[in-house]
């Protein structure tokens, strides 16, 4: 025993901040905040595209330099600060220990550190808007030479990204060791909820894919701060003048290192979502998942293959026929496991007695949306078609279908599904259905027209939306439709935000396992609620000869059952 006097206050606070539930909530709330910021940036972008010359209230006419910042930051914030931290840090950190019967994650302090690194990196990136040159403005992809020569916002982006990458690394180590080592006895790997498998595979992707981006960020920082030429070729002219650097660098080096991360990153974006959807489908069809083992092998293969496809983002960089053929082949192969998973999820519905609860609505809608997003990726994975579609709105529509009515719908489903477990209260059902219907319609209204624009040849990241190009003129009007749908989408999130805020305080109390689910996180309630005295045995007219002190009586539990049962 230590002879230091104990200081309960500091100890209790420090223990609080390493508890996996606290860290999970920290991640979730921070990520939701960043998602909101990213959404607001999108509204500004869409305003500019729909009405390019029109001044924005409080901001005036948007200069192109601001537009490029908004575009770069929208992508960065949504991917690195919003979706992944919510899906992995939020849902993963909170639920995985509960689902495997562990009291804590394997390295609680490391886990806490990973949150603070994420917050630090996120704040640096957000604060870069206040720099004299503004925020990063070279796309979320930060291609050199442009990014090498961009304003100081890009340096902030790189530093922030280094912190975020480190956060992911520490979080991934914690997650993997937790899942491998801290399962309760009897919980073999093939008895794990599919959600845990997706978190395990995602953690490996984060662990192994981020370091090359860290290397790349370091090299770009050196280019910007020490004058090196990792990515700058000799004889580069900027504004007609030769750049006074040593040259000898290769812009493609950045692209390779960036996409080496960024392709597995998209599987990081989708895998936790698939896990959540699987849980919610099984629960609301009252049937086992179809092909559980097959799906496990499929996502393992998906993760492995995902490291071998990255250059399909670079088909137009003159890579030579052999490399191009190689990456086309691996890209086609990598699409197979995701089709397997989607098919298994669809087959899981067959013969099910489906309860159309709010989480189930989101999970069901996820399936065709994910299908559409995935299928539209196939032409992009074949170089001849990609020649026409690369860097057009077709690509934007493709990946947004996967992330917006895909992953984000799965995250919504997860919030409605697990809110009772986290808070002990239920979210309001009616508001949830309004949120669902509005979001589904609005998201399709936003992204479906973008396929049309992309097929017409409209380029990405044009601050006037392509108004200067003749080929874009027939599809320019779609920008107005999309902008209007974006505003409707924003309005449809209000019931959701109101729902959460209201239900936290006034939501109807949920019983211990309101969805009658079968996985371990439902075995315990967030807080016991004391309903009666300590010794209610053999109460006359009760359905059983005991009424526990800590839950509503069994009769009352039936009143709180979800609709549709």
């Amino acid at each position, binding site marked *: *025993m*230590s002879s230091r006097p*104990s200081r*309960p206050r500091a*100890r*209790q606070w420090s*223990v609080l901040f*390493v508890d996996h539930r606290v860290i999970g909530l920290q991640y979730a709330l921070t990520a939701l905040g960043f998602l909101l910021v990213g959404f607001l940036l999108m509204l500004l972008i869409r305003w500019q595209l729909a009405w390019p010359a029109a001044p924005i209230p409080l901001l005036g006419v948007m200069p192109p330099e601001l537009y490029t910042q908004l575009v770069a930051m929208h992508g960065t914030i949504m991917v690195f600060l919003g979706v992944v931290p919510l899906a992995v840090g939020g849902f993963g950190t909170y639920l995985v220990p509960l689902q495997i019967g562990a*009291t*804590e994650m*394997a*390295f*609680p*302090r490391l886990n806490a550190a990973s949150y603070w690194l994420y917050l630090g990196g996120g704040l640096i990136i957000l604060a870069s808007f206040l720099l004299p040159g503004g925020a990063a403005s070279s796309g979320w992809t930060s291609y050199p030479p442009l990014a090498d020569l961009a304003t100081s916002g890009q340096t902030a982006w790189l530093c922030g990204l280094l912190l975020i990458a480190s956060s992911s*690394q520490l979080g*991934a*180590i*914690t997650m*993997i*060791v937790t899942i*491998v*080592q*801290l399962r309760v006895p009897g919980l073999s790997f093939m008895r794990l909820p599919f959600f845990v498998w997706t978190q395990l595979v995602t953690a490996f992707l984060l*662990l*192994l*894919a*981020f*370091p*090359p981006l*860290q*290397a*790349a960020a*370091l*090299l770009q920082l*050196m280019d910007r701060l*020490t*004058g*090196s*030429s*990792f990515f700058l070729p000799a004889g580069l002219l900027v504004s007609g003048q030769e750049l006074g*650097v*040593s040259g*000898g*660098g*290769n812009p493609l*080096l950045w692209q*390779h*290192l960036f996409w*080496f991360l960024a392709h597995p990153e998209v599987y990081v974006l989708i895998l936790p979502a698939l896990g959540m959807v699987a849980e919610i489908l099984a629960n609301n069809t009252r049937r086992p998942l179809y092909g559980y083992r097959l799906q496990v092998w499929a996502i393992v293969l998906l993760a492995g293959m995902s490291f071998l496809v990255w250059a399909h983002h670079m088909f137009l960089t003159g890579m030579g026929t052999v490399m191009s053929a190689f990456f086309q082949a691996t890209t086609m192969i990598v699409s197979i496991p995701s089709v397997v998973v989607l098919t298994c999820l669809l087959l899981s519905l067959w013969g099910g007695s489906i309860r159309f609860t709010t989480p189930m609505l989101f999970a069901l809608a996820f399936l065709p949306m994910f299908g559409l997003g995935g299928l539209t990726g196939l032409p992009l994975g074949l170089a001849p078609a990609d020649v026409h579609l690369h860097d057009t709105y077709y690509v934007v529509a493709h990946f947004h279908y996967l992330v917006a009515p895909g992953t984000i719908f799965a995250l919504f489903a997860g919030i409605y599904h697990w809110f009772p477990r986290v808070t002990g209260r239920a979210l309001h059902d009616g508001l949830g259905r309004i949120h669902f219907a509005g979001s589904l319609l609005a998201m399709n209204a936003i992204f479906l027209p973008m396929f049309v624009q992309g097929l017409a040849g409209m380029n990405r990241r044009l601050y006037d939306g392509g108004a200067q190009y003749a080929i874009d003129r027939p599809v320019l009007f779609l920008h107005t439709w999309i902008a209007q749908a974006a505003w409707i989408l924003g309005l449809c999130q209000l019931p959701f935000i109101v729902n959460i805020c209201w239900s936290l305080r006034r939501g109807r109390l949920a019983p211990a396992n309101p969805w009658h689910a079968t996985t371990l996180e439902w075995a315990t309630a967030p807080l016991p609620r004391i309903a009666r005295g300590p010794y209610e045995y053999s109460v006359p007219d009760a359905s059983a000869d005991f009424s526990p002190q800590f839950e509503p009586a069994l009769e009352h539990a039936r009143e709180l059952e979800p609709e549709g049962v």
Partner: protein
Amino acid sequence: MNAIEDTPLSMEIPYAIEPRPDTGFSNAALGVWLFLASETMLFGALFSSYVLLRTGAPEWPRGWQRLDAGIGLLETILLAASGVTMLAAVRATQQGARTAGRRALAITAGLALLFLIVELLAYAAHLRAGEVPSRDTFWAIYFALTGVHALHVTGGLVVLTVVAVSASSALPLARLAARTETVARYWWFVDVVWLALFVICYLT
């Protein structure tokens, strides 16, 4: 004294230092292997950048034409020696020889510090001669590779010092042995990376 408050967190989490029977790993051991896998990807990316830049360059100097191979050899010997003393520390702590283990850890840290000093002196000499990253991509990738490696040596030095300092009689021997093993795996990895670096940068 409140027993719950004074219980360190690591005691509540199973398999922190003893291996779990059905996986064969302790948490610490598995954790450090995963960390090393990640760092392998980091250095792999840096080395692949070197390969890309060198293959695409119209001309590229031989390592010894630009770098002092003698200094490189000195650094290699320092790290190799530190690898041996690290092994001694692992053996000592496993056998319960606390003082010997502490001494070996301290010597390893000392050798690491010497390595860093030599590296910094070499950097200073390069800077004085105008051999800086902005001169050409050879120097740029040299500084990038050796700089990232030196950062890893620094991190290792900090951990070695912390473990050595913590090896007082209050720390249970099992935990000391576990900590020493964990830092040893990391340290040997850093040594192997240096070997690859030395061969590729200095000798080719």
